[in-house]
């Protein structure tokens, strides 16, 4: 009898705990994949620039027997290739615009700053000046502006991805996922901040 009570109580407890843990779900694996794709794109070394939803849709003329107007509409409105989209979305016109700006920056001023070690990736998904003395004085103010620009775009990106997925409260997780992604994909020689806040060279 006592055993039975134990079993019932344990089952209840498990059910209760089960109920609680279901509430919050952040698709971590999908987010990681999406972030890696985005970062790879920005850093220009992933070689996989076309995520699922961006494929140029082929408009296939519909078979005979369908009403003409329906065909017209099908032509007007191409089907999105959304079948293999991960369950976190990262591509909107905004994130694309941000990606474009970031890409340009990494190919230009920010890339140089990272290569020289003047700037590194922080543990919270941003960039920061870690050694301004590595930059000639005349370019230092410009370097600060570049870092500020990049951080504005990064903050906008994280909140935009959270919003595009209809979960603004995911922003911290998305930021953390990206922070890890930037550091993972950092080129050899670039600096990043470990979880303790100390700068390390990759």
């Amino acid at each position, binding site marked *: 009898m006592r055993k039975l009570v134990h079993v019932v109580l344990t089952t209840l407890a498990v059910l209760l705990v089960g109920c609680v843990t279901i509430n919050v779900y952040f698709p971590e694996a999908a987010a990681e994949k999406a972030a890696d794709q985005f970062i790879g794109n920005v850093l220009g070394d992933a070689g996989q620039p076309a995520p699922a939803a961006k494929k140029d849709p082929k408009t296939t003329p*519909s078979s005979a027997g369908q009403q003409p107007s329906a065909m017209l509409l099908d032509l*007007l*409105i*191409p089907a999105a290739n959304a079948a293999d989209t991960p369950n976190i979305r990262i591509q909107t016109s905004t994130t694309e615009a941000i990606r474009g700006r970031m890409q340009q920056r990494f190919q230009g001023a920010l890339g140089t700053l990272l290569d020289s070690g003047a700037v590194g990736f922080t543990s919270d998904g941003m960039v920061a000046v870690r050694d301004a*003395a590595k930059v000639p004085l005349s370019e230092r103010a410009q370097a*600060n502006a570049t870092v500020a620009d990049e951080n504005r775009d990064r903050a906008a990106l994280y909140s935009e991805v959270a919003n595009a997925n209809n979960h603004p409260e995911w922003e911290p997780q998305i930021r953390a996922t990206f922070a890890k992604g930037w550091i993972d994909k950092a080129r050899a020689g670039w600096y990043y901040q470990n979880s303790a806040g100390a700068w390390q060279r990759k």
Partner: protein
Amino acid sequence: MLLTAKSVSVPGVRLQTVTARIGEDAGGGLHLQLHAGQADVAAMGWRRLGLTLDGALQNERTGWVFDGNVRVGGAPGSALGNAHVTMLVSELANTLQVDIQQGNAQASVALPLDQPSHAQISLKNLPAGWLQGLLSTVWSGRPTSGRLDAELALDVRDTGIQSTGQFTLDGAGFDTPTGTLAGQGMNGNGRFNIDTTDGPAQVDLDAILHGGELLLGPLYARLPDHPVQLGLHANAQRDAFELSRLRINDADALQFDGALAFDAKGALKTLKVDHFQASFPAAYQRYGNAWLDTLGLRNVSIDGQLSGSLDLRADGMHSFAFDTNGLDMADADGRVAISGLRGGLDWAAEGERPATKLLWRSLQFYRIPNGAAQSHWQSRAGTLSLQQPLEVPLFKGQLRVSQLDWRPAAAKGQRLATSLVLTGVDMAAFSHAMGWPAFPGTLGGAIPALRWVDDRFELQGGLSASLFGGFVDITRLSLQQPFGPSPVLNGDIHLQQLDLGAITSVFDFGSITGRMNGSIDDLRLVNWSPVAFKASLLADSGGRISQRAVNNLTTIGGGGVASGLQGVVLKWFKTFGYKRIGLDCTLRGAVCQMGGLDTGADGYTIVEGSGLPHLHVIGHQTQVDWPTLIRRLRAAIEGTAPVVR
């Protein structure tokens, strides 16, 4: 004769493991060789350096004269690596005179024998790097380049040094470990006074600078070739750095009287400007450019004059005021432009300030030009209030700000209280400014309250436009980072009884008659283009759809249907009757989830026809690529056929 000593100390200088060898040289004089394994000169910040003196010692009428070489190993900037030195000890005159020459650098030191802690020093062409050790005793910064002439008096005390004198700099530079305070290529001359005996180093400096660059945290100055007066009183304590008095006078660009402090990380901690006067564009080009760049305002074109004051402390803003008698400003991205700004604002966290007036000839946000307006302000107990309603002409209508209270020092979310009324804005002019097809109609509305939290403005109330014979209501508006790189606009739009005939004529898409209702909820525009919404449009009062509208649809699709039997049939009719038209689109990411009047397994009905010929439009694709849809719609409106791949 060989003398050795473990340690020899005179004030300011301490020598250890000293060997001195004195012998007779060929000329009958004495030859002195002195070597110290470790020499410490505290005032110069020199520690544990090797020192070698080698030369002739002669007893002349005036006293002992040493003429030879000095070699100091390991001094900062290779100071005295191999220098010629003449020393004269004159008991009669009670002085020790040391003259040192290395290359074209010269240093002369004279000190009284009975008080060797006091020295008169004269420097010529001295490499600034030689002073690195000296500077390191008071500050973590170091000189990087340049040469220095100076005449100064130096007192070495147990607790530090006192020095005063005048100097001339030639191409001087300095840097700090964090790199946030630095200078380069600076020329100038002036007077200084340094005291490190009482706690943190106190530096007084009055100088005239010309040329060079100076970086003070976020402020970067490119000094002009003409003289700029600089006066400052600095407290330096290792990394932290405070300028308790800073005066800059660049005649044709900037006058500045204030104080600022940086923390150990080189970040600006406090900024107090008692008097500030700037003439643009020179002030922007020389001093403001870099700072505005970091704020995201690049290539600002600014012209005119501005004077003001500011008190910014670690706990926030305490007061600010500005005044101008004419200022024009525009940023390169066209986000904001002001012309003919005159007057000013005057705010303080406490007490009452005089009333001010601020007026402008025109004010432009993005593509929206606002006309001339005049505003009256006064600050009382930390609230800067509009004294009279502000009326701004806007697209033949008016924006009336009936009340505005700004509390710059209040908690987040309570900084701004305002109520706005918009009346009679001409939609045709507005849509023209936005680059849209001209919508006839007017826009008005009231925003009774507004909340400002962080970078987000939430507007209560709503706007209502009478458009196309119906109404468009916009509610739950919020705007985030209006001048950032990615401004975000949120809102809900409700459409009531819009005349489809008028809409289709504006868009030149063929004609559809009837009335339309609908809603676009949770609309989210980022950088003014939609990234999410839930739209639902319905025309259920019946009407007609023209053959041209259908034809247009055909050309959009690349003309695939205009041929064949169906095309021929279509051409017989000018218009088709319809009972209902309905279309839903929910945009998330780049994909629109489509729907219509009724959704079946085979598709969703978009047009339900009536009469003959019976037109029935069914959509089959529920997931639609948004950018492609927009591209084709735009091409249809502009009358150019897209390339279908």
